[in-house]
């Protein structure tokens, strides 16, 4: 008959609980990445400030997680995106910041149009969402 040492198991569980509790309190995640977006990696470590966000997946551009424009339409349009411009003008300009959460393989032409439209709407700064690397 094998006797199980429960004390060691309790120690292990206690350490796991402490680790998970500490991890849970330091992460404030309000940007939902979803939509199959794989963020590019960078050495940045500051969390993004809370502001309006534009998500760019492989197929669609989302404004605060609501579908706005298909990516194919963005590529065919001019440098200013009217639908995005209309949405941006309704957003509060918190220090002029806008968060861009885009897939790493997005052609820069799409980002360029989005960034130009943001600039025309009065947003002077963008925060590019990235995955921290090392």
């Amino acid at each position, binding site marked *: 008959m094998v006797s199980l040492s*429960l*004390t060691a*198991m*309790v120690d292990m*569980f*206690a350490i*796991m*609980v402490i680790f*998970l*509790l500490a*991890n*849970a309190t330091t*992460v404030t*995640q309000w*940007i939902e*990445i979803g939509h199959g977006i794989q*963020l*590019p990696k*960078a*050495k*940045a*470590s*500051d*969390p*993004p*400030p809370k502001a309006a966000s534009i998500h*760019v997946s492989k197929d669609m551009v989302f404004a605060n997680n609501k579908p706005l424009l298909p990516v194919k339409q963005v590529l065919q349009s001019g*440098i200013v995106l009217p639908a995005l411009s209309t949405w941006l003008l309704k957003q509060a300009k918190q220090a002029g910041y806008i*968060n861009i959460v*885009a*897939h*790493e*393989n*997005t*052609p*820069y*032409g*799409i*980002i*360029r*149009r989005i*960034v*130009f439209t*943001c*600039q025309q709407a009065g*947003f*002077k*700064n*963008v*925060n*590019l*969402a*990235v*995955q*921290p690397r090392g």
Partner: protein
Amino acid sequence: MAGVVEEQKNGNLNVDLNLVPFIDLLSMLVLFLLITAVWLQVAALPASLDSNKAGALTQLKQSQKLNIHLTNHGYALSWPDGMKTKNLPKYLAKNNQGYNKDILLKLLKKNPAPLPSASVSAEDLVDYGYVVEAIDVLKESGIPLVALTAD
């Protein structure tokens, strides 16, 4: 009651703690925290928005800052006026692994003082990930203000 209390002959109390319910509690707590834990960390790389048009509200003229333009074949570098550019390349071609960000970082770090600002632009078909990589390299080299040029 979680334990069994036994009184010994000499009057001392001997408490046997029942660990099984304690382990049940801890395992439920661990499961809950694992489910609700957020493993994907998100950080932000700040960039200001710049314009090539004359009269744009930029802190420095285009000729006073480093301009990096990403093409499908590499980095096209435009160094600021007044900088000794004799040994500085104007073009860094891609290698087998992609853009030469390590060489770019070395070139920027060779400078005695970090440049005040830089701007990044790219061709339409270049992947956004490479543009972020270029901005990251500029930030790592100590350049405080990095702008994205959209026109």
